[in-house]
């Protein structure tokens, strides 16, 4: 392209990008860099910032609460993600056929994903009520004697959060899987049937490979989202009992907005970002191995 024409194009291009770019720099890129820097300071948000180098990060390694939130987050991810994606995929498989009331079912399954978490948490609080809640009443009626106190139980608090999270999010992934499933050509299934493949074989050799790019994408998205879990923890258990459900984002929140340790909180947030980055890169590298479509 001629030089002057290229300048013109550049000008127009940047003009279009500018509104978004300004916001991007001011509200996303700028703060990100500032957060990276802030991790090296100690700051109570009021007084002067004190350079402490790697102190914040060293303290994090020795902070038992941080370690707990780290482990809790991984515990959440490794349980919630498979359950959520599995449920979503299962529902999508059930719905992926000509079906009366298909849209109605899809509407129902997706509904939990659009409700405001703050509005629905009261019901879950009630469901999990140790003595009067319907969950324990149901279990008791089935003869279960040693009833857990759910959100007040060190061992069952996180599973309580996981269950609520699956309810909230499965529908979202169901929608993605439904779209992916509908894109697998019927002819492949036909060919498999002609070759004598039964339902399970068709699922393993046609369906799964056919939606493998989507599975890969969804897995990354679900893992990243699970590392960022906050609303349910803040509203249902407040990181408790004790530190049983203290997750990384909750830790960052309490460090910054209840303890006013902005430097330390930024360090923790940066670690969160680093974890997300590493996990995503690892997943990306593995893509070659099993995305077959």
């Amino acid at each position, binding site marked *: 392209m001629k030089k002057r024409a290229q300048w013109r194009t550049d000008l127009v291009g940047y003009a*279009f990008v500018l509104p*978004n770019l300004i916001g991007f720099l001011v509200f996303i890129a700028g703060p990100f860099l500032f957060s990276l820097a802030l991790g090296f300071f100690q700051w109570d948000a009021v007084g002067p910032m004190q350079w402490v180098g790697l102190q914040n990060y060293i303290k994090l390694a020795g902070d038992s609460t941080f370690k707990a939130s780290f482990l809790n987050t991984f515990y959440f991810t490794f349980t919630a993600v498979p359950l959520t994606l599995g449920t979503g995929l299962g529902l999508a498989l059930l719905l992926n056929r000509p079906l009366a009331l298909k849209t109605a079912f899809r509407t129902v399954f997706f*509904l939990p994903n659009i409700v*405001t978490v*703050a509005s*629905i948490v009261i*019901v879950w609080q009630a469901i999990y009520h140790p003595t009067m809640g319907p969950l324990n009443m149901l279990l008791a009626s089935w003869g279960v004697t040693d009833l857990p106190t759910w959100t007040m139980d060190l061992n069952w608090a996180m599973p309580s959060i996981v269950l609520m999270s699956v309810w909230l999010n499965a529908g979202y992934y169901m929608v993605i899987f439904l*779209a992916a499933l509908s894109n697998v050509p019927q002819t492949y299934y036909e060919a498999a049937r002609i070759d004598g493949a039964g339902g399970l074989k068709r699922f393993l050799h046609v369906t799964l490979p056919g939606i493998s790019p989507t599975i890969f994408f969804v897995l990354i998205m679900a893992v990243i989202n699970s590392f960022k879990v906050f609303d349910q923890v803040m509203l249902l258990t407040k990181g408790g009992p004790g530190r049983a459900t203290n997750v990384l984002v909750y830790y960052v929140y309490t460090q910054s907005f209840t303890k006013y340790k902005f430097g330390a909180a930024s360090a923790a*947030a940066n670690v969160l*970002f680093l974890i997300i980055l590493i996990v995503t890169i690892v997943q990306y590298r593995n893509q070659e191995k099993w995305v077959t479509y």
Partner: protein
Amino acid sequence: MKPTQAIGRVVLYVSLACVSLITLFPLAWMLSGSIKTEATIFNFPIQFIPDVAHWDNYLKAWSMVSFGALFRNSLKISTLVTVGQLFTSTLAAYAFAKIRFRGRDKLFLGYLATMMVPFQVIMIPQFVMFRNLGLANTHLALILPGMFSVFGVFLLKQFFTGIPDELLEAARIDGCGEARTLFTIVVPLSKAAISSLAIFTFKWTWNDFLAPLIYINDKSKMTVPIGLSMFRMENITMYTYIMAGSVISLIPVIVVYIFTQKYLVQGIALTGLKA
């Protein structure tokens, strides 16, 4: 239809119905609990339709929470964020997709890289910035950052790229500048993607909890999630009133959902497929 096929169908429908009931249980129980009394709300086996319907719970909840203000605030913030985001994302996405300016690909890569940065990393610096500007306890702190979304640019760029260049060429030959081309040709063709982004952004902003939590202190400026949350905290054992309040807060959300779910589903499918 063969007998085995018919049985298969029945099993399928029954399974779907069961899962539906389980999925709807929390919402149904909340609805039924909202018109019960504290004494009967936990009755087991569950009586979904109570003998006496205490609709006055709703009046009580409405009097205890200024829902009018909460709805107004949420509506204002969600609408402004959505409009702002649509505007900036459409312009930027068009440039990334169809205008060959120098540095375009590197810049877009930079955008993509930040998609992995969670809000929690940038929330502290953002908060500091707004506080220093004296905007900490204001709606602006929620509106301004919300108007700039990498995700929106990404989604629309993917979509715009799929629009054939020939259409744009024809417009350029007819003398249209880039802006005319964008608004008269590209946008009408992208109604699906744009409406999806709009609904998504609106829903996401309406339901946002963390950002309003850290910024808003005045009760008069609170959004629905925060206001309702405070209500619950202050009356933690009054299940019936809180449930009534929760139902009130969910009515707009569910109504909008029923009318726009097509766009939500389509938008999610778009993100999933174009990956």
